[in-house]
């Protein structure tokens, strides 16, 4: 109905999309131009490709398969902390990778809690560097995501089906066969593909827990070609390989996932009549407890080990924290100035090119874009002097697909609900933005800004590529402390990083919701 005209001009969205496309495609072109295909694929390249695919496939399989019983338990049980637990499942998304890795080491590492317990009964300690560690960390991040996506699948089953099941006195077995398995057959491939795509481009996990000839991902190999060998053309060639890998993974993921990844309303369970058996209740209780422990133990490890050190952190850590906050705020500003006009243009329905620009970021990884920018900047300036702005920009580009997924439905709602009224009142441009669109979108803007700020705050990617030894954001500083075995200071820095990420997310998110209520 309201497709003809909208009170905001979609031209600004097209301009923003052009900027995004230029930045990403420019970086890709630079990489292709600099890459020397004559290098071919050496044995170490093949090893990196194999390891990348293997760890991503294992991570996706474990996350998706383990998420099934956990999501089923959450879908059919009501208990006091259920809402809190579902919220906690969203936390790994904004948790800095380096902080999570630190927590996982504290729990599952050689001298971690689990190894200590194993020592009491005479068993050898765990060893989590290499493939085990990379997969463990990826499962830590993606099991909650998979659980949330599957929970969405359960919620999308019409509640009448469960009522019908009660009428026909289904047991849990019949429900599984007739209702749950068909739903899982539709959703699981998509869940697997999304996690596979995420793990293909994951960098910080491989940097901290992988490495060596047998556990190097392509993304990590790019970094090593850069920082250890100073071999720009090899880094560019590896980037081309990574573009192919990530592009294929992203296309598969987009094909297989029709659902909304950040759905709300997951905290409302459907009433069920088929799952009262005591054995099932015990089983679900155990599963939910295990999943909660798997999430909570590493987080508590960070808090416990960091509390002592956070009060006397060295000045470099505070300095790095300050820089990180600046980068995060700058990145959030860039993100919003791109994502807002793009979401309006997409909602106006006139620009599918804008949408394509929005998902370009999914196909390119941070280190590939970073390499491309390095190649482009290198002839003109010292890229290291632009480390912070480039980091902020790349972080914004990486957050863009998520931000659009949050903003576009809201912008569509406003256009559908109020576009005609605004037009009939002759409201356009700034008055419309100020009095209608921005206030209506404020909760979503706050949420998107919070995600972008937290993601940028915890990012350990491009900054590792560009930074000189004198300069560090907080995640990089923490990584350097860990590499130097200053574990206590690293723990303090980790806690500080965790707190800052959560505070940034909370401040934007709550600010957005308050802005809407005012």
């Amino acid at each position, binding site marked *: 109905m309201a497709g003809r*005209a909208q009170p905001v001009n979609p031209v600004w969205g097209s301009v923003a999309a052009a900027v995004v496309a230029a930045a990403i495609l420019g970086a890709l072109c630079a990489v292709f131009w600099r890459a020397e295909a004559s290098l071919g694929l050496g044995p170490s390249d093949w090893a990196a490709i194999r390891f990348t695919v293997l760890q991503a496939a294992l991570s996706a399989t474990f996350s998706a398969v383990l998420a099934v019983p956990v999501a089923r338990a959450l879908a059919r049980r009501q208990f006091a902390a259920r809402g809190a637990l579902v919220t906690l499942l969203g936390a790994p998304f904004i948790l800095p990778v380096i902080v999570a890795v630190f927590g996982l080491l504290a729990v599952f590492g050689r001298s971690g809690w689990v190894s200590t317990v194993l020592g009491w009964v005479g068993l050898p300690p765990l060893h989590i560097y290499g493939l085990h560690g990379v997969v463990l960390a990826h499962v830590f991040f993606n099991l909650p995501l998979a659980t949330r996506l599957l929970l969405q699948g359960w919620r999308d089953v019409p509640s009448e089906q469960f009522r019908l099941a009660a009428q026909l006195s289904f047991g849990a077995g019949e429900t599984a066969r007739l209702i749950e398995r068909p739903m899982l057959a539709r959703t699981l491939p998509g869940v697997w593909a999304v996690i596979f795509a995420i793990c293909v481009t994951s960098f910080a996990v491989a940097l901290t827990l992988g490495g060596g000839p047998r556990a190097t991902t392509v993304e990590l190999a790019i970094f090593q070609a850069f920082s250890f060998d100073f071999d720009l053309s090899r880094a560019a060639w590896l980037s081309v390989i990574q573009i192919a890998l990530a592009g294929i993974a992203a296309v598969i993921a987009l094909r297989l996932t029709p659902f909304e990844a950040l759905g709300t309303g997951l905290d409302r369970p459907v009433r069920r009549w088929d799952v009262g058996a005591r054995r099932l209740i015990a089983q679900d209780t155990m599963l939910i407890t295990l999943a909660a422990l798997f999430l909570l133990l590493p987080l508590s490890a960070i808090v416990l080990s960091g509390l002592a050190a956070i009060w006397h952190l060295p000045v470099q850590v505070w300095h790095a924290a300050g820089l990180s906050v600046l980068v995060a705020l700058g990145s959030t500003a860039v993100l919003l100035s791109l994502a807002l006009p793009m979401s309006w243009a997409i909602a106006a329905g006139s620009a599918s090119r804008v949408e394509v620009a929005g998902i370009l970021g999914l196909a390119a990884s941070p280190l590939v874009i970073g390499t491309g920018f390095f190649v482009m900047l290198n002839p003109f300036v010292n890229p290291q002097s632009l480390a912070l702005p480039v980091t902020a920009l790349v972080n914004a580009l990486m957050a863009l697909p998520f931000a659009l997924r949050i903003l576009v439905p809201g912008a569509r709602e406003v256009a559908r609900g109020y576009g005609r009224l605004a037009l009939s009142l002759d409201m356009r441009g700034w008055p419309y933005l100020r009095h209608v669109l921005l206030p209506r979108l404020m909760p979503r803007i706050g949420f998107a800004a919070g995600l972008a700020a937290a993601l940028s705050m915890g990012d350990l990617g491009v900054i590792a590529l560009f930074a000189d030894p004198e300069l560090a954001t907080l995640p990089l500083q923490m990584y350097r402390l860990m590499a130097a075995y200053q574990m206590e200071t690293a723990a303090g820095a980790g806690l500080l990083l965790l707190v800052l990420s959560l505070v940034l997310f909370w401040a934007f998110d709550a600010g957005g919701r308050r802005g809407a209520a005012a």
Partner: protein
Amino acid sequence: MLRLDAVTFQNGSFRLAADLNVAKRRKVAVMGPSGSGKSTLVNGVAGFHEAITGRLFWDGAEITAMAPGKRPVAMLFQDGNLFPHLSVRQNAALGVRPDLKLSVGDWTRVDAALAEVGLGDLGARKPAELSGGQQSRAALARVLSQARPILILDEPFAALGPALKHEMLDLVERLVEETGATLLMVTHDPGDATRIADDIILVEGGQAHPPSSATKMLANPSPALRAYLG
């Protein structure tokens, strides 16, 4: 006079032809079966659907290519007539200036409009804090402060109970009489038409027929109207 000169409105793949005049100050009910194009007709007059042929005139001046906000039309939609985050007074004030930069005199006009619809002391409330009937009144206050010569109702009172709907139609009738506006009102209910309308425009088979007297049409319905009324 509102004149639709051999107009065809396009709404998606649907087309509606109209060649008719509505005299000033007339109150016209737009009736017809579901999907016949009643909404397309009034939304076309309001400027939300393109006229792919023909021309529209108001008072002799052509309005065919005018943007919705520039037309001499104020409209009440089925829903979404109020911005939920703005106060009732602000909502009404949008009818005067969409940037809400009103002079003292303008605000006086807005307050008069609110008093006129019986919401004089509820201006500070948000729409959600009002009852359904009060929300309709607030929307009418907005329409009043728009002060446009044509008022279009696209079934805005459909969700109200019968008593409340009659109350609103009486209020509309009073406001239209006072302001001298021309009224186009989509309705399913012949009772609405007899209550308020002078004329009826029958819409059926992709065509909007010229208005003719409501009493006569309802007393002696054409075959098409009889098929619709049942």
